């Protein structure tokens, strides 16, 4: 890195599935923490996870006392007839003074912009805005201040979007990498009757089954479909359809038709992403433990501080926390990923 180069300081945006994880993230150096309520208004509607309204109030107090922000994900799509729950959630977010809400639905965004003009809006990755004009549309219609880009773009494409988008850019740098365009996937619903977009859950735990066999292999099932068979000693991933193995004509055995289980890790691309104009780096994993939050957030806090100070970043190995115990730079490095 050239000595004279002054890099803009991006925010480090960290996940929290519980109040304890939120405190862990703040303590580990998060600039902002994102979380969701205990219902289908957010895309990690998992059993035992997330925040009640009183939890959220205390979390905001804890974070604000330490100069950290709290972002509330309200990023699912209300089914017709159920909009009231999303309206109440947006109202609560405004009342509690969260620093921004993260939205995806046209109706939710319109309601928030109209009713709470001072409430800062971020566009969720669930809105799938992957081109400058799509981003412009959301900015012009709803006053969106920041867009979270889908995990399907190269660094060069991100730089181009930054040059053409009238808002801040947030990109993922670590965590689960779903293969399908976010917010546009009903695979889970096809297998289980529960909708990722409307119910906020991909591969609901209640429909996941693991079946061990005598040889030490394990099959994973979603609804009535077998989605993978994991050999003895072979590492595993999340039981999602897009990381399963399937048969198709022309192939002699099962293959990862969409993607192998692995974790996105862009620690090596941080300087490039900052130069591309990214204003905020997001770590995925609201469904993970506070041990994960502490380890990953600390590692990226150090790495980011190193980059900004002109040192080459030293990133502690996070492989142990990674899905399939493999890492990837996914779409970001090159178009050949596609």
């Amino acid at each position, binding site marked *: 890195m050239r000595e004279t180069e002054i890099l803009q300081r991006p925010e480090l945006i960290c996940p929290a*599935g*519980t*109040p*304890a*994880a939120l*405190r*862990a993230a703040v*303590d580990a150096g998060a600039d902002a923490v994102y979380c969701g309520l205990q219902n289908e208004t957010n895309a990690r509607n*998992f*059993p*035992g*996870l997330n925040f*009640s309204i009183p939890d959220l109030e205390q979390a905001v107090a804890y974070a604000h006392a330490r100069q950290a922000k709290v972002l509330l994900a309200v990023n699912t799509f209300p089914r017709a007839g159920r909009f009231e729950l999303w309206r109440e959630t947006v109202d609560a977010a405004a009342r509690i003074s969260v620093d921004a809400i993260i939205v995806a639905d046209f109706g939710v965004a319109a309601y928030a912009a109209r009713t709470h003009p001072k409430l800062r809006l971020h566009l969720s990755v669930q809105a799938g805005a992957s081109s400058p004009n799509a981003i412009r549309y959301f900015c012009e219609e709803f006053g969106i201040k920041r867009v979270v880009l889908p995990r399907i773009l190269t660094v060069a494409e991100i730089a181009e979007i930054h040059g053409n988008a009238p808002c801040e850019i947030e990109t993922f740098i670590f965590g689960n990498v779903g293969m399908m365009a976010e917010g546009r996937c009903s695979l889970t619903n096809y297998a289980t009757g529960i909708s990722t977009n409307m119910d906020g859950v991909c591969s*609901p*735990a*209640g429909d*996941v*089954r*693991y*079946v*061990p066999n005598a040889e030490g292999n*394990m099959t994973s099932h979603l609804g009535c479909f077998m989605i993978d068979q*994991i050999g003895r*000693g*072979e*590492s*595993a*991933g*999340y039981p999602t359809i897009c990381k399963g193995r399937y048969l198709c004509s022309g192939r002699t055995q099962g293959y990862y038709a969409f993607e192998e*289980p692995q974790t996105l890790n862009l620690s090596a691309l941080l300087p490039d992403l900052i130069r591309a104009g990214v204003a905020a780096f997001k770590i995925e994993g609201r*469904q*993970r*433990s*506070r*041990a*994960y939050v*502490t*380890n990953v957030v600390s590692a990226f806090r150090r790495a980011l501080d190193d980059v900004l100070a002109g040192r080459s970043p030293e990133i502690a190995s*996070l492989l*142990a*926390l*990674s*899905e*399939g*115990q493999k890492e990837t730079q996914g779409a970001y490095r090159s178009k050949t990923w596609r």
Partner: protein
Amino acid sequence: MHSASGPASHPADARPQLPGLVHVLLRPIPLPLLRPFLAPIAAHVARAHPQLFARLGPHAHKRFLIDPLDLPFGLLLTPDPARPQLDACRREQMPGHDARIAGTFLDLFGLVDGSIDGDALFFSRELQISGDTEAVVALRNALDDMDGSILDSVSAAFGPLSRPASLAISAIRAIRARRTHA
């Protein structure tokens, strides 16, 4: 706020195993001797951390078999707020259950202690889940919503035995840390 050990995992050949001595000491313990210690643990956790039940929701009444594969016995947990129960059972006579969580004693210890990420342990195949997956996820999330370790909270409640209990926990943490970094 967390134990000094790093993230969860370790290649399969180097996974932390219980030292032979501990194994030898635990093997002959008659379960009737263990039980008087287990019941108060469940009662204490239920009393001191009522928010657990809100997170568990309908799963509070499920029976969780916690199965340390390198020990001769397993633990059956029924969080039920009205009548929380933790009981030991011989490997040869494992009781009926809704969900089973199996792994080495040290891994399960680290999970409850808050120093290991459950997903990571699952990815590395060192944690086995069967039965009611949703109940397991709810239990994991409920136990994770706490500052520090639930084990410290339990050991502090042990009255005259809290010092030895806390020493035992520290010793096991040290073993885990050593094994993990080995």
